[in-house]
């Protein structure tokens, strides 16, 4: 896929099963690998993921110490020299600088109330300014003494050096105001200010929220059923405390290893339908009504009957297992496909194979979805769409 992740629609069999069974850590690792690859493809350099300015796991302090372009600072003789001696930097406020001409005839008034004479030769009043950054970005440090000294003196990306008063963070500019807290970060007190050993705020980071998000997402699937009346809680009470304990204790991997493709902790809110088949299968009369409604709905949406295009209306999510998803409308438009009869025969054959493989067992929602996606891939080339020129029904 464009973002570097694997497209599950291209997988099949064991590969698809393994893809479904990935743990959250594996998913996160895959995401980071894809991000690193994209970085390398774009910049052409390797990138230490530990210095990812947007990490998803807690790695201590952010890796903002590395230049996005490591070669930038090395192009200059010394970091303390102006790129252009005719110009100099003067402070105009906290963490704000302006370059002005250092001509003797040029004067500049500090909007903060002070005044400064711009002279590159040293007449410039630098009391309010930090060290000359040579055109590089400066730390948002209130203490100019501890501004950037040498971009090549890189400290550990995850910690601030205790002995070196300044740290090379060229390329990183902390925001003037902290970022807005995310939903998860607000649960943990909002964005965390990062400070140097001297106590200066050098930025803000949400790593705790990012780390918590992974864990909270996994946990949310267990607490979400509490909001559904008659959902997971009922079944948990019926089964006793053992059910609640099992849900929290077992990992996805260990549970799936001994069971078919299933994510019961993700399907708890429909636990009754999956586990106990509370909802009975559709009656034959109900199916007939649904199919008539499907043909009518397809015709209404497309402006033409499927039969006029030589197609039949195919339920991508079949009616056979519609009772496993009682809250899903079988005749939602996204589920109605116009297929050539020959293509529908392909879908029928694949569905029959799935049915035979079940051997009488009730499939899980995940299994139903997996076979649906597989059949969708097989018949997608034969979709009949209104307005798209394709061979119509053969004249009789």
């Amino acid at each position, binding site marked *: 896929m464009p973002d570097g992740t694997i497209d599950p629609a291209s997988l099949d069999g064991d590969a698809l099963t393994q893809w479904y069974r990935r743990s959250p850590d594996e998913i996160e690792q895959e995401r980071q690998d894809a991000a690193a690859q994209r970085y390398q493809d774009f910049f052409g350099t390797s990138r230490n993921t530990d210095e990812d300015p947007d990490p998803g796991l807690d790695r201590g302090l952010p890796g903002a110490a590395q230049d996005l372009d490591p070669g930038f600072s090395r192009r200059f003789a010394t970091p303390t020299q102006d790129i252009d001696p005719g110009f100099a930097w003067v402070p105009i406020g906290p963490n704000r600088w302006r370059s002005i001409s250092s001509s003797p005839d040029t004067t500049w008034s500090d909007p903060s109330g002070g005044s400064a004479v711009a002279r590159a030769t040293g007449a410039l009043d630098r009391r309010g300014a930090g060290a000359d950054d040579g055109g590089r970005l400066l730390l948002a440090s209130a203490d100019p003494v501890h501004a950037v000294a040498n971009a090549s003196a890189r400290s550990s990306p995850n910690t601030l050096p205790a002995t070196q008063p300044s740290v090379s963070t060229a390329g990183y500019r902390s925001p003037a105001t902290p970022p807005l807290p995310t939903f998860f970060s607000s649960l943990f007190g909002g964005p965390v200010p990062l400070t140097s050993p001297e106590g200066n705020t050098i930025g803000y980071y949400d790593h705790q929220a990012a780390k918590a998000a992974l864990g909270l997402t996994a946990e949310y699937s267990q607490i979400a059923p509490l909001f559904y009346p008659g959902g997971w809680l009922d079944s948990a009470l019926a089964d006793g405390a053992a059910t609640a304990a099992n849900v929290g204790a077992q990992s996805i991997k260990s549970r799936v290893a001994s069971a078919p493709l299933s994510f019961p902790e993700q399907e708890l809110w429909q636990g009754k339908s999956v586990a106990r088949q509370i909802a009975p299968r559709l009656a034959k*009369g109900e199916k007939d009504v649904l199919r008539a409604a499907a043909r009518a709905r397809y015709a209404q949406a497309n402006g033409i009957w499927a039969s006029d295009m030589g197609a*039949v209306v*195919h339920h991508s999510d079949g009616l056979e297992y519609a009772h496993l998803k009682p809250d899903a409308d079988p005749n939602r438009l996204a589920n109605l496909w116009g*297929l050539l009869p020959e293509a529908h025969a392909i879908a029928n054959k694949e569905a029959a194979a799935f049915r035979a493989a079940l051997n009488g067992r009730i499939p899980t929602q995940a299994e139903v979805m997996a076979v649906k996606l597989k059949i969708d891939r097989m018949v997608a080339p034969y979709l009949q769409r209104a307005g798209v020129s394709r061979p119509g029904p053969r004249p*009789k």
Partner: protein
Amino acid sequence: MEVRVADAVQRLVQSGSLERTRANHSALIIQHVREQLGQELPPDLADFYRECVARVGDFHAIMPVWNDRVGWRPTAVKANDLIAAQAVPIFSDGCGSLFGLDLSAGDVTPAVYFFDHEDEFRSPQWAAGSSLGTFLLLLADGDRAYREGWPPKWELAIDPDLEKCPRAPAIWNAG
């Protein structure tokens, strides 16, 4: 109550619910299906092929297609696709399932049954008409009945013998 196929077709043509095929290759079709099934056709089925029915409402008829240049054109559904269930497909339901005429009736007027693709066409699911003629009348009114919300068992007004079909019950008793 038995309605002759020709009478039912005539009635549907007058109501505008039935379309015929352009060409009449009924003789070739009857011979071809006889060869495919390996047995003589029921009289109702032969009459049906002679009427050159293309579609009734939104439902397309299923029959071999003859082309003078190509010969028998390949079709998605063949006449012997339901032979294992002792039936011959005559109409598509528009969603991949089939209506088939019973071949095991012997001398009795064969009924028409619904074969579900989800069941892999193994056995008839419910009775769609006690005879081919009455089935055509019911088929023409099926979508209209759903659209206008006709009362349950409206089919009995047109086909009173629908519940007497031997191989499968009427749809309201099918479960």
